[in-house]
């Protein structure tokens, strides 16, 4: 299952408006898409699940996608989160 690790760089974290845009973008894909943060995971197609992660600035998130359009979804969603995120440092 492909994934992308990202660091949140927006000073407000992943707040309501970008989170809503993200949910709307995620819902266009057939794949199951999740966002992992601080040991928890949320359905990327649910705003309440996403906001419930309380994603703060300078923290890391991982997007995962499972399904027929997984790779395409991750590429599009990472782009959707620009300029709120940057690529995370490669895992050590």
């Amino acid at each position, binding site marked *: 299952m492909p994934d992308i690790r990202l660091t949140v760089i927006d000073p407000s974290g992943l707040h309501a408006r970008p989170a809503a845009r993200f949910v709307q973008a995620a819902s266009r894909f057939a794949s199951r898409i999740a966002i992992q943060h601080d040991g928890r995971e949320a359905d990327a197609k649910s705003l*309440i699940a996403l906001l419930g992660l309380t994603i703060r600035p300078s923290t890391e998130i991982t997007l995962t996608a499972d399904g027929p359009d997984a790779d395409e979804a991750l590429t599009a969603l990472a782009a959707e989160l620009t300029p709120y995120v940057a690529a995370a440092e490669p895992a050590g």
Partner: protein
Amino acid sequence: MGLVLISHSGKLVEGLREMVAQVAGEDVPVATAGGTSDGRLGTSAPQIEAAIRSTLDGGADDALVLLDLGSAALSLELALEELDEADRARVRISEAPLVEGAILAAVQASIGASIDDVAAAADGAATMAKLPRA
């Protein structure tokens, strides 16, 4: 589907409508009923009825109604009594907190979710975490 927002304050629901549009986009119809007919704080059954009818007549299959508190529920009941059975069946009342519930519901509605999923998203607002876990 569309949202109907009811508050004792017209300013509150107008501001909330702006927030909903900015977070969820303009595609989800939002009707409001706030304040009394003479501009005081309170709720008005005719205003609520008009807001529900405008949603149902405006092309939405269903309407999810969110309200603030107290007599808003009584005014809503009076408004619903004016609807025929078929229209009443298209209206769902939410127990969700008004502000958070409206925004969460609107985002789920904007992605084409069913009324069950939209209502569940609104309900989730009551227990949604706002601060990071300690």
